[in-house]
């Protein structure tokens, strides 16, 4: 059954029509060309497809597109022009936290969701907050360090 819905995607209003039970991930990547959202497992385990829905971190593969009607979806493309992104970007670069890069867009959005709720997290709080975002390359040290650094250097942004 076709449903019409309207969402705000990275600040722009998008009208979409289709089967409302489809995965948000598939609609973002296949219909809307939003390939900055990476697909790692398509079953809610790896976090590579993380997006923000009204600021809440979700695995877009576990979210039916019908549920975003009237809501605001932010992917890394809609986040990368913000000062908060710039603080995270600098911190990730400073500690060389990016290896293969596949988990990184999702990881950065997970960091944003954490810092928005808790601007000065501890190491353990960072680890808990990104525990739904798998990384096979780094061992996580650098990513945790980058997020803590961003929270300190980006004082006042969150």
């Amino acid at each position, binding site marked *: 059954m076709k449903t019409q819905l309207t969402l705000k995607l990275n600040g722009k209003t998008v009208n979409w029509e289709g089967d409302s039970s489809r995965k948000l991930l598939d609609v973002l990547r296949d219909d809307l060309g939003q390939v900055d*959202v990476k697909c790692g497992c398509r079953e809610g385990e790896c976090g590579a497809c993380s997006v923000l829905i009204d600021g809440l971190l979700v695995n877009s593969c576990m979210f039916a597109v019908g549920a975003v009607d009237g809501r605001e979806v932010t992917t890394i493309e809609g986040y990368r022009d913000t000062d908060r992104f710039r603080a995270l970007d600098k911190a990730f670069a400073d500690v060389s936290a990016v290896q293969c890069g*596949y988990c990184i867009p999702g990881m950065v959005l997970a960091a944003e969701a954490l810092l928005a709720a808790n601007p000065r997290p501890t190491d353990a709080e960072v680890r808990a907050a990104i525990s739904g975002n798998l990384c096979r390359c780094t061992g996580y040290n650098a990513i945790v360090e980058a997020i803590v650094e961003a929270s300190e250097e980006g004082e006042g942004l969150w």
Partner: protein
Amino acid sequence: MHQISQHVMKKDHREKIDGTALYVGDFTQQGALCARLVRSPHAHARIEAIHYPRFPEGYYKVDAADVPGENIVHVVEDDSPVFEADEVMFIGDPVAMIIGPDPALVDQLVAATVIDYRELPAILDIHDSDKVFFDYHYHKGDIDAAFAVADKIYEEDFQTPYQEQAYLETQGVIACFQDGQLTVHGSLQCPYYVQAAVIKACGLSAAQVRIQQDYTGGGFGGKEAFPSFIAAQAAVAAMKMPGKSVRLVFDRREDMEFTSKRHPSCCHYKAAVKDGQVTALDIQVLFNSGAFTTLSPVVLQRGIIAAPGVYNVPNLRVNGQALRTHTVPTGAYRGFGAPQTFFAIERLLDHIAADLGQEPIDFKLAHLVKQGDATSTSGLYHFPVPLPQMVAKVMAASDFRSKRTAWAQPQSGRVRKGIGIALWFHGAGFTGAGERDHIKAVVRLRKLADGSVEVLGSNTDIGQGIKTTFAKIVANELDLPLELVNYHNPDTALVPDSGPTVASRSLMTVGELFRRAAVQLKEQWQDGVEQVVEEHYHEPDFMLPFDLPTFHGDSYPTFAWGVAAVELGFDSLTGQNDILGCWACFDVGTPIDEQIVIGQMEGGVLQGLGYSAMEQMAYDSTGRIRNHSYSDYIIPCAADVPKLDVQLHVEEFPFGPYGAKGAGELPLVGIAPAFIAAAEQALATRGLNHIPLTAEESLAYLSAGQKELAK
């Protein structure tokens, strides 16, 4: 540390963090044909007939009958077909492929394809194998004499399981045949391996086949040989449908279940001890190769060369076999055969030491090889062996002695603790004469008229940072700003064959070729014109040539060294373990970028901890891999581990760029024995000779201990 070690922003940082880097699955599907494989449901069966459904317009089958060249995927021994025609050899073995524009309809057509099979007996267990793919032997000294005069003889068996690379980006390629030219791009480590496979399967010339690497979301060995299979399959389909892009991108389940993983192993070790020293080792190493040979010969070579570990044991007899079973073919994974044998030798020495009433680390230090000693293959340790200093660093950082002593006492309370330590090496670069006889690497630098330099080679940046480190080497030698020196994702039409991205060779071997090319360019430099220089690999003169039939000579030009201590706490109510600490020290020579190296070391350590603690993969009674998602194959998440403590020790290798050695594989190799040593202490048991260690098993040891206490 060398000034080049100072970190810079990684060359590919920007596009990876802002989401603009395109991985193969990110290319548009508009106009492309989706490809899905029809796979065998049987571990071993004869194909009697294939019944395809009626295909709607624009949908096609591709199978063995469509292969224009030889129906073989070229790896080493050329025994695996592009598509099976007569007999299937494992569950998941590809028989055909369906292509068409709509993925959902392609899936339906795959499901509607009926294949008549006559089932044949399937061999799953390596101990039942009826085919030895590779059987290697080597020896040193007089083993029989050593055993004859031994004070005591120890014999133990060790088992290690599959390990799945679990890179975050699944395997995928896109192939297109147009105007007589076949192009394949995708997620891969070795463009020229893929090119050779496609040439053979498609019957084309090298000039007609172009392979391009896309941004690659991790490899760890999993994208060394396997991309050759899917590239050959997609290429065959592309030749059938000229002008169309054929897109073969795996989903996670397909990737985990049917792509190559680390060889499961069974090792039998027998040791002779005389006057408190291990004087002889008689070793048998068995690897499960799965249905085909893939990379097993080379994996096995590395495994058995490492079999006596970092210890000077004068008398050796080593036999290694890679055996066929009707299971998914195994292949390359970081460490490449060595994690299996290092697990065995480290555990064995822990147990012998305990039996002799010695602290294992002291017993091990008393057996260490040193510079000038013979290697297992009667080559030489040409360069310093810094293990004693590295052990001291790790023991100091982890407060090893006091913890080890305290936890050796009977423990009570809910959490039981233990700490263990392991020592190892990684032979840096290709095994044996591979670099000299097979790879013959060539690199090029192209200086443009504007003064910028393109660094040209076929090695791929799969996260390990060679876009940055290669550029740093060249920029440093030419005194150029780093922005003017660039290394791009390789394209076989544009770059020479500098060899595969494997064996921790890229930076050490190819990086040195780039450094020498840069020296050459600097000598010839002329402003305002384009210039090209080329360098070829030559084996360093100091090496004793390696002879494969006898396993005699220098197996590696040099070694990278590793030491790690792991501290565990076990919950005596649940059996769950917590990794409380991990301290490691690595010598990979001069780091070309300290942060990149530290990142590699931390990532490898964590894969080693996963291998030890949680990554459990097995086949069921039919031979089917049971684990095919991150839900049932658990890899470590950020909350599973504390901050890993990694230090570097630098022994410069004079033949690597600025003293660099191989790095990428090293950190994973010896983590498992350190982990299990810690578990043995915490669980107050001995003889844990397998990984991973499950909570159920730990609980059984803990309850047995409780009963013992209650008596």
